């Protein structure tokens, strides 16, 4: 009896083993029903016809609504929906996109909308309509009337919009907010009035929009928990500009950790990566040049990457000692950004100009002002400023989000440099949400931040520095240093109401703002974070590169880049390797 039972245990073991061997099959296949929220039209994407991208999406594709920047998936803007103009940060200037022209006539702005643009349904690729001025007018009106529309504040000075055929006339109240309107033109999507008008006001802003009707170069083909795949749109109007895609499919994969992305790139599972990969310069350069792993970057040597945004040291200027200008000057002179550029980033980023304005805004930087008031690494001077500030040796913290390893290393470096001149700073690494809450509520001493992204003018940069009034909860990403300078804020507002064509006046205003900025140092710009881009050249070639005049386009799929700058031009240059 006893022995029989032992056998039954053994039999149980055998049964478990068999079940265990069968489980991966059943489990993995069983997932198919659950994971495919839409039935893919092509089950398998041939490697030779598919461009794999990554580096933008942090969660699975569940939303393709261009009005919902909090939830939309990569490609929603750019591959599906398109703006009226694009901005070219590398060569400067705007490129006509869904609008072929736009002109100011006094207080009105008149646009011609492109002919021959089709509204195409995903995933069937059926043409369901033609783009007219009415679609553009509808999109602008939606932004005007719905306060949760992401472009609501851009159109605050618009009084009315009318469309006649392909002509759209926008009339402004009083002096137009020229800069914010210009930002609207190259940021906001043009929506299909027929389909979007039928949605509820909530769905217009945050509906999932899983079967988009769009004008862009691709249509949505399939989604799974780890990727979204797009198919080239045979009805795309890009031929009018000589543009077409040479790959048939583009799959954008949800981000994994750095090590996973690096492995995917080096093994050729991934073609185009916009992930931050620490030490990528070593792979590109150190191991036998670009051929080692077939990895390409925008510049073949330092700084390897284009600049994407300004990392600055943000101080809570409502608290002592950060409210003292001499203390802030001491901090600025005590830090050596170059040591972070080479030590932490292995030269894949550049040290910032003292104004913090990105390289694409160089023409707005007054070199004389920078020469006269700019700061640089000078520990001796830092000690003098510190003495003048009357700093009483308060213990301060400097925070970055937990897990942002490059910033964690950077603030260790910065803290050492600050302590070396006698400023007692401890680096801290709170969870992202805690740090976000600290900045919004002003419950911090110092932090590293990069809330001013790329723009075509210095306006939004200075808006982020000087925006008033300051609320108890600074929810918008504005003035987190809580610095009050009504004169500077008035200048920012004046710049916003100056036509972009009035270069002399804009230059004068921005020079004044730069002077104020460098004298008072409400923020301390340190380095430019890179527009991380590395590509694998085994399957595809013709990636964006500074070396080739025909390939100088933005190599970035991030929000605000893919659909708004010249990334679509870059994609059109890609060919089979």
């Amino acid at each position: 009896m006893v022995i029989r039972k032992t056998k039954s245990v053994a039999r149980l073991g055998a049964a478990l083993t068999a079940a265990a061997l069968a489980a991966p099959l059943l489990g993995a296949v069983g997932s198919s029903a659950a994971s495919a929220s839409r039935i893919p039209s092509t089950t398998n994407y041939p490697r030779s016809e598919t461009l794999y991208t990554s580096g933008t999406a942090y969660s699975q594709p569940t939303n393709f609504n261009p009005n919902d920047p909090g939830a939309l998936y990569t490609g929603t803007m750019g591959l599906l929906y398109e703006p009226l103009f694009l901005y070219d940060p590398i060569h400067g200037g705007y490129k006509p996109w869904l609008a072929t022209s736009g002109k100011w006539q006094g207080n009105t702005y008149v646009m011609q909308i492109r002919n021959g643009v089709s509204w195409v349904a995903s995933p069937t690729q059926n043409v369901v309509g033609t783009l007219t001025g009415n679609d553009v007018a509808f999109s602008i009106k939606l932004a005007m009337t719905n306060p949760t529309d992401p472009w609501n504040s851009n159109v605050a000075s618009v009084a009315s919009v009318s469309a006649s055929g392909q002509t759209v006339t926008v009339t402004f109240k009083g002096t137009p907010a020229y800069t914010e309107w210009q930002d609207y033109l190259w940021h906001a999507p043009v929506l299909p009035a027929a389909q979007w008008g039928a949605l509820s006001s909530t769905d217009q802003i945050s509906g999932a929009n899983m079967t988009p009707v769009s004008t862009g170069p691709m249509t949505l083909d399939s989604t799974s928990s780890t990727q979204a795949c797009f198919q080239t749109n045979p009805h795309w109007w890009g031929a009018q500009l000589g543009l077409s895609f040479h790959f048939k499919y583009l799959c954008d994969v949800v981000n994994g950790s750095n090590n996973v992305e690096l492995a995917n790139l080096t093994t050729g599972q991934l073609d185009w990566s916009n992930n931050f990969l620490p030490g990528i310069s070593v792979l590109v350069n150190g191991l036998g040049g670009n051929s080692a792993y077939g990895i390409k970057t925008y510049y073949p040597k330092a700084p390897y990457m284009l600049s994407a945004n300004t990392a600055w040291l943000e101080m809570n200027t409502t608290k002592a000692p950060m409210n003292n200008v001499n203390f802030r000057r001491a901090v600025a002179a005590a830090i050596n950004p170059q040591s972070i550029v080479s030590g932490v980033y292995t030269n894949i980023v550049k040290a910032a100009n003292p104004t913090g304005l990105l390289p694409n805004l160089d023409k707005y930087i007054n070199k004389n002002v920078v020469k006269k008031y700019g700061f640089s690494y000078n520990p001796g001077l830092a000690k003098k400023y510190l003495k003048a500030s009357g700093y009483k040796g308060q213990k301060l913290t400097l925070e970055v989000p937990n897990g942002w390893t490059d910033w964690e290393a950077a603030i260790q470096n910065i803290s050492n440099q600050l302590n070396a001149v006698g400023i007692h700073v401890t680096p801290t690494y709170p969870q992202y949400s805690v740090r976000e809450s600290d900045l919004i509520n002003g419950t911090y001493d110092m932090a590293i931040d990069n809330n001013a992204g790329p723009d075509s003018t210095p306006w939004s940069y200075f808006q982020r520095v000087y925006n008033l009034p300051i609320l108890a909860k600074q929810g918008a990403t504005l003035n987190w240093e809580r610095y009050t300078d009504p004169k500077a804020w008035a200048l920012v507002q004046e710049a916003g109401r100056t036509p972009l064509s009035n270069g002399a006046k804009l230059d004068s205003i921005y020079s004044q703002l730069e002077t104020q900025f460098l004298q008072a140092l409400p923020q301390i710009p340190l380095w430019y974070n890179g527009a991380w881009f590395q590509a694998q050249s085994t399957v595809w070639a013709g990636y964006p590169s500074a070396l080739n005049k025909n390939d100088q386009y933005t190599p970035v799929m991030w929000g605000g880049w893919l659909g708004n700058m010249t990334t679509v031009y870059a994609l059109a240059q890609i060919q089979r390797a």
Partner: protein
Amino acid sequence: MRRYFFKKVVTYLVTFFVATTIDWGIPHLMPGNPVEIYLGRFNISSNAQYLALQKTISQAFGVNVPLWKQYLDFWSGVLHWNFGISFYATAPVTHIIAQAVPYTLALLIPAIVLSYVLGNRIGAMAARRKVLDNVVLPIGYLFQAAPFAWLALALSYFLAVRLRWFPPSLGSNPGIGAGWNWAFIWSAIRHWFLPFLSVFLVSFGGWAIGMRNLVIYELETDYARYLRSLGASQRLVRRYAYRNAVLPQLSGLALALGVVVGGNIVTEVVFQYPGLGHLIFLAITNEDFFLLQGIFLFIIIGVLLANFVIDIAYVLIDPRTRLSMTGATA
């Protein structure tokens, strides 16, 4: 017997209630505010717009009501199998969990069961063969002590990046849609192997060492000596020893299977394997407490069910449990 089951069921129901309440409460203790994180993804350039969005988003996720109301809503959700919308993935929590469960089960059930079966066999053999023992023991200790993350990275580096035998990450090839076709099944198996191997090796070491020690202990007990002194064959003694030694191992197996629904966080993160462990990691880093609550509820149910099953299994396997229920002593 009936009283025994009644008592057990009541205990399990009370445990379920308490555990689920804690499951609801703990994510709320995390510092920070998920709505703020969610809004951080927008690049909001006006405070008025921030307030408008904050109101809309709080309403959409049902966090604009007092805590007690959120607690009641949560229980109502549990009873209707609706755990709300994930902040991080902006999709229903049940939908996201349903996508991840098959991957986790496919990864962990074979790894745990195979390592259990082989580990016990080889552990028991090692207990009586000195040569094998000298090999199995150090290897077992090495694997058991190896941190999951390190072993996973080492496997990934050598077998995926250097030798390119297996893909380094994901649950299947990105270009292949999930479905009942050989291309997908083959790709899923290739992606499954490395995470499987890393869990298998670590668990195998644990089972083997445990079994070896238990069998050695059992072989030295009085009943084993008595059997031997009666002239019972070595084979018979070993069978008795194995049967007694396997009991604590079986409890361990049940517990291991109970937490299977929680996935294996480290392995799944290292291999970006789209299972529940990876999801827990994402839920925590994004303060997605609806998702976290949903997954933890799965774990609670899994552990309770596994314990219940082992309670019953003990009655069937170990006669002493049966005897104690009828009042006799073993």
